[in-house]
């Protein structure tokens, strides 16, 4: 593990993100949709509450499509274009490459998230919100974005095709999102309680729900960190497997 190498890889990846207009279009789309969701679907004004729950509640659904789009090219485009061969034969080390690329994607997500700040200003202007809750919401949202991106990184390492990587990520993320909703749990009526608890525990939605309400529980933070660690580890394994093939 070398911070310097991680930093070099990360900066190169960010360069690629912003080398084309795609990144800017992406951020604008994200901001517009985040606004549309909070104001129209979340009834931000009608609620009459000085908080951002209307805004945060839709993040999992926004991320379900936006995060796979950020992550889909991380590895698959490198494999498609052959640059993976260059990257993996430079003395960087697998771990450093995996982390550097992931951090670039995560920072990109952070930037998109930070640019939603006008809604924070809006709610502060209109009322007197609990800023601690909002900060917790942002941190939690960013952590969850990391979870989605780590899944995306692993899926991207599985295939040469970006579209396939995107779809795989959406599917896997969706499974993790909805695992705790009643409809899914009812399908597991036969399962013992510990398994049900486990399935509920895996749910992005339920974990994030608490965070969006301002409860930044250590266990939830740990959960998203472990998700990230697990999927990045699996990314490393996928790269090893690709090397053997």
């Amino acid at each position, binding site marked *: 593990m070398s911070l310097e*190498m991680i930093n*070099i890889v990360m900066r*190169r990846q960010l*360069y*690629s993100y912003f*080398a*084309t207009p795609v990144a800017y279009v992406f951020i604008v789309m994200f901001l517009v949709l985040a606004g549309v969701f909070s104001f129209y679907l979340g009834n931000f004004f009608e609620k009459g509450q000085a908080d951002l729950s209307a805004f945060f509640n839709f993040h999992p659904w926004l991320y379900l499509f936006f995060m796979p789009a950020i992550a889909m090219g991380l590895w698959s485009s490198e494999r498609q*274009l*052959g*640059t993976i*061969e*260059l990257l*993996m*034969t*430079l*003395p*960087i*080390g697998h771990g450093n490459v995996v982390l550097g690329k992931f951090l670039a994607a995560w920072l990109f997500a952070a930037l998109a998230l930070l640019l939603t700040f006008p809604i924070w200003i809006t709610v502060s202007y209109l009322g007197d919100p609990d800023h601690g809750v909002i900060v917790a919401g942002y941190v939690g949202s960013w952590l969850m974005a990391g979870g989605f991106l780590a899944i995306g990184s692993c899926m991207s390492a599985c295939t040469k095709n970006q579209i396939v990587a995107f779809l795989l990520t959406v599917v896997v993320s969706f499974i993790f999102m909805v695992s705790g909703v009643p409809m899914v749990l009812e399908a597991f009526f036969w399962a013992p309680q510990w398994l049900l608890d486990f399935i509920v525990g895996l749910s992005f939605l339920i974990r994030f729900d608490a965070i969006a309400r301002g409860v930044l529980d250590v266990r939830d933070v740990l959960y998203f960190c472990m998700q990230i660690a697990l999927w990045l580890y699996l990314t490393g394994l996928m790269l090893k497997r690709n*090397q*053997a*093939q």
Partner: protein
Amino acid sequence: MIHVQNLCKHFDDVFAVENLNFSVAEGEVLGFLGPNGAGKSTTMKIISGFLAPSEGCVSVCGFDVTKETHSVQQLMGYLPEGAPAYGEMTVRAFLDFIAQVRGFKGPQKEQRLQAVIEQVQLQSVMGQVIDTLSKGFVRRVGIAQAIMHDPKVLILDEPTDGLDPNQKHQVRELIKGLAKDKIVIISTHILEEVSAVCSRALIIDKGKLILDGKPSELEKQSRYHNAISLNLVDEIPDAQAMLQALDGIEAVEQVNERLFTLFPRQGAMLLPQVVRWLDKKAWQVENLHVEKGRLEDVFRQVTSAKQKARA
């Protein structure tokens, strides 16, 4: 030294490399020859640490490629097949990235970048996005990337593919200039290149090593080795038959009306006799020389013989 021992690589049930053994010493420029799909690129990918071998081992300067990949990669400059580079980056940004990965910093980095850029003559395109470059420039960016840290071991997969004759010449000069105390492996299917830059050539086919030797030694295996090429000024009827009747001549091939190739019997050196004979006959000669042998001929001979044997 690079040691390749019992190297095998199969993809599912296709054998790409089968039991390959060879070593390369410092100062050698090894030319890797073979038809498309012979396993050249696969072998190079394994030496560079990109692919893991199915069996066997490769060591580079005492480091095992599979176990000490990092150390090997620090010693090595590698140009992958097709010279991949990040197309959305400018040449400067891309080479800067490589220099950073190679551990250069500050003024030392600038110095090194400058030197490499001059060596492969990229000054005019430094600010351009790689995707917009011609094939020749992309290839040179790839070479610049590979020689950035003045590596002890240089592996170039088809370094002159897509270059024009001037650029080819330049790259060959560059390789020759590098080679003093380094190990260079290049793959190519351009045979003149092997005679031009390589001190040793390996021919592989279907993943197996078929021939190993100096280009001049390999040329000797050609049936054109010591053959006499004769170009007459005028067309002479029955020339072929008359030449055929000469003592010590095994066969005469007529290339066109006035051009003949004379194949001597095993090991015979016939030039003086032929010259005297031509003088006596008073035939006007435009050109007469002894051939060194043709690598292309050897290449075709050994690679197609294998195919026939398999069929």
